[in-house]
């Protein structure tokens, strides 16, 4: 064992500053951490929120109208937009991970290209669905 390696303090804990400003993630790293963040957001609060919307909108005509008006509020629309992005990103990144599982797009160049495609397609889908529901 080299003495240089032995002297390094292990384990190394990263400061928040280092995580945010000093570590530059490659694109597949961004797709990965965003997949995790979007997944957590989808479990809570978005799944609960959508179940509430489904519940109220299916209950009665009055409930349906109420949800219609509620979703016209800017804050509700913003929430819906964030949900749509989280869903699209999680879905696209998930499909990429399934392809990686069967050794598709696993080389450095194609992995980076795949990651870029996931980021761009999920943002484009969000914009498109956002326009559709406005």
């Amino acid at each position, binding site marked *: 064992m080299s003495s240089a390696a032995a002297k390094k303090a292990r384990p190394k804990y990263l400061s928040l500053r280092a995580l945010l400003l000093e570590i530059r993630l490659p694109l597949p790293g961004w797709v990965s951490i965003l997949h995790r963040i979007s*997944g*957590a957001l989808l*479990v809570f609060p978005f799944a609960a929120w959508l*179940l509430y919307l489904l*519940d109220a909108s*299916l209950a009665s*005509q009055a409930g349906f109208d109420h949800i219609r008006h509620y979703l016209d509020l800017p804050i509700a629309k913003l929430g819906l937009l964030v949900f749509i992005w989280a869903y699209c990103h999680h879905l696209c990144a*998930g499909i990429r991970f399934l392809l990686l599982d069967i050794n598709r797009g696993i080389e450095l160049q194609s992995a980076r290209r795949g990651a870029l495609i996931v980021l761009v397609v999920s943002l484009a889908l969000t914009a498109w669905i956002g326009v559709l529901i406005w």
Partner: protein
Amino acid sequence: MVNRVITGAHYGTRDWLAQRITAVIMVVYTLIVFVCMLGAKPITYGVWRDLFSQGWMRVATLLFAVSLAWHAWVGVRDILMDYIKPDGLRLALQVFTLLLLATYVAWTIQVLWR
């Protein structure tokens, strides 16, 4: 004769596979619902209620909810194991997650068969 598998119980493989199978189920459901929504414009209360009163849609939605709960359990458990170091807090959050996901499934059943 000692015949032990020293590499573990392989529940990791089961979780890994379950997460992927449930993912594919949810992708298929998403595409079906998306096409239904695109085809039915404008969406009135009647269209909305009729969509969710069909037997196949109720079963598909329940299948989606169960898939989501299973998929999310594997994912959230991974996140908690990675970031939450104190055992007691991690256990408490895992129990909370299970209760939350069970509530989602029960709520879905209540909404669909009312």
